[in-house]
């Protein structure tokens, strides 16, 4: 598209212009494509490129920036208070690992436990990790790894809880704190097998009054039986005396 045009320009003022000027017709200044740049201009653009300032040290050589101490948010403080009150009030506390239970199962579990006055509490593991080492429940720390849930209640109803847990196989009992004693899974099972207090009382009383109750039953029988027993007793004592007297 290059055409050479020679034109004569007539001068009206003083000064001079060359008599013949060649005007090249190429593309216009504003094109849709990027126009090919004159070689000299290319060189100019190459020379005058941006040169960023060099850093004194390589990027990794300086010390890494210090991390800011994480501020405790209001929610964390609230949760910590809740954890404290739970530990203080509840006599029974069982840590349970729940593996992929859906909301339906959770609802049923909650219902069953609610009938025995056991509530389910869930706290973030981080809160537990920040709270436990400062309290006397330090040894519960290794239990709170992964998805854990706590069953808390004011009365230690272990048997009912174990029965409920048996029905949901995905809940695994890890351990707990019952009446200020830390118990493992085995410990909790043994605790559940213990008889209740009234039975224990009864047994104790029975054991203490064993002798007296036997005497009472003996006296209540026919006196002939009692006299026969006493004679037998004397006979037993006598052979023991005579060998000793002859010796």
């Amino acid at each position, binding site marked *: 598209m290059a055409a050479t045009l020679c034109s004569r320009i007539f001068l009206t003022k003083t000064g001079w212009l060359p008599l013949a000027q060649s005007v090249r017709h190429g593309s216009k*200044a*504003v094109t849709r494509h*990027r126009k090919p740049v004159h070689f000299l201009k290319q060189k*100019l653009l190459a*020379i*005058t490129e*941006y040169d*960023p300032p060099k850093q004194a040290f390589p990027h990794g050589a300086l010390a890494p920036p210090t991390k800011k101490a994480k501020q405790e948010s209001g929610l964390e403080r609230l949760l910590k208070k809740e954890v404290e009150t739970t530990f203080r009030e509840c006599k029974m506390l069982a840590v349970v690992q729940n593996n992929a239970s859906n909301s339906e199962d959770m609802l049923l579990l909650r219902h069953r436990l609610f009938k025995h006055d056991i509530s389910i509490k869930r706290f973030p593991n981080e809160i537990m990790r920040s709270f436990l080492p400062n309290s006397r429940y330090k040894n519960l720390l290794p239990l709170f790894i992964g998805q854990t849930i706590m069953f808390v209640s004011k009365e230690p109803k272990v048997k009912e809880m174990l029965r409920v847990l048996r029905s949901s196989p995905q809940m695994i009992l890890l351990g707990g704190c019952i009446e200020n004693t830390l118990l493992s899974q085995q410990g909790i099972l043994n605790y559940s097998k213990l008889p209740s207090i009234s039975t224990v009382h009864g047994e104790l009383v029975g054991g203490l009054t064993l002798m007296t109750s036997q005497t009472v039953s003996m006296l209540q029988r026919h006196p002939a039986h009692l006299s026969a027993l006493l004679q037998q007793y004397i006979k037993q004592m006598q052979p023991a005396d005579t060998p000793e007297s002859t010796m």
Partner: protein
Amino acid sequence: MHFRIKSVWRKGVVLPEKPKLKFLNKVPNFKKAKKEMKRLRDIQGPANGANTFTSGQYAIVAMGGGYLEWGHMEMIRLTINRRLDQNTTFASWRINAPYKPITRKGLGKRMGGGKGAIDYYVTPVKCGRFIVEVGGYVELGEVEAVLTQVAKKLPFPAKVVSRESLAAMHQEQAEKEANNQNPWTFQRIVRSNMLGIRKVISPFDIRNHGRYTGKFFNPDRV
């Protein structure tokens, strides 16, 4: 329910009565339409007007020159109006309705026989000009998606920008100019006509520091 704490939001946000983009005419209402010269310099170089924020917070900025036709404007209007939530956002045009007539000769006609008839109208847009401004009780993340969708469809490269990001862009450019380690700059060589380089450089290049070539913009140049 769509709930925003408006009292907490930044001050100076005023929703206008008509928050949607208004319809722009395809043809300006002249009594007699005049044919105009091509005048491509209305696309060349940086924009002087409409290159700052007025009422909105986010905008689409042209990063190159070009002509916006009525079809583009309709696309912009429909896309943005569809995604606007009238209670929280508003949008406004920063360009005029098409006013520059573009002529075309009929298909298959030979050269000569006068200038062609007016085919359609366009709006010339220079680099750095705002196309649409959006504002209201919204964050950039909500609005960015629509605006990038629109920006990709424009006939020139365009960018979604907020007040802070635009200021940051200008700031970065100024810093680059200040801390350039290269002692040879475009302006220095061309203004003193070193090596007779003025032979291949146009006055337009000198005025724009070599950053603009025709309708194109080179952001890497300092």
